[in-house]
């Protein structure tokens, strides 16, 4: 979805078992829910005239 939205250079960090020991752990386990960190960029603007014809 990030790339579909126009972001580039997507990086995804390690999964974190964020619900471990919490009340929501059972539901999280059922659907293999983990926390992740993401990084992505808005593409830089191209100088005028640098686009493809």
């Amino acid at each position, binding site marked *: 979805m990030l790339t579909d939205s126009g972001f580039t250079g997507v990086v995804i960090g390690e999964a974190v078992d964020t619900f471990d020991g919490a009340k929501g752990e059972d539901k999280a386990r059922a*659907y*293999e829910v983990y926390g992740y960190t993401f990084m992505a960029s808005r593409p830089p603007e191209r100088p005028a005239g640098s686009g493809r014809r």
Partner: protein
Amino acid sequence: MAQDLPVDSHALREQVRGKYRAVALEPGAGFHFHTGRGLASRLGYEAGVVDALPDRAVESFAGVGNPFSLRRLVPGEKVVDVGSGAGFDSFIAAGQVGPTGQVVGVDMTAEMLAKSRQTGVALGLAHLEFPEGLAEALPVEDAWADVVISNGVINLCADKRAVFAEILRVLRPGGRLQFADIANGRPVPAEALRDIDLWTG
């Protein structure tokens, strides 16, 4: 497109607002997720930085990852925190960008905003503000931000494409989105996706 969303955006927003009103007012009440200093430690935040923050800055923290783990912010950067809650990540960001930077924490829950604003004043952070707003309609100018951060918020928005489009709008060209959120490894049944109660716990 709105007609393709599994739940009504406004109804979900009210459900989320109610849940996080409780997290702001009764952070120790016990939720389906962890909160506070224990959670910050679990997610790998720098202990010294968290220890230096007052309890009210940390106790309502309910993130799902550490948006600073892939890249530390740079002094002078302008940052937008989408769904800033009681301000925990905004305070971390304010420390990393320093007084030459700026941080705008946006949230839709009045009780969270009141808490973050009071803490920001108490900490004397003049380069930090907390306006009210929605992830889908950020009160920020086009291309203002060097970095957008967020933590455990986008999964609570029905129209994620609208949120990403809005983030793209406020980022400058070449700017970065650094966020943490949950993702499921197994598909959630369609009927569960339409059950609004399951979105918030």
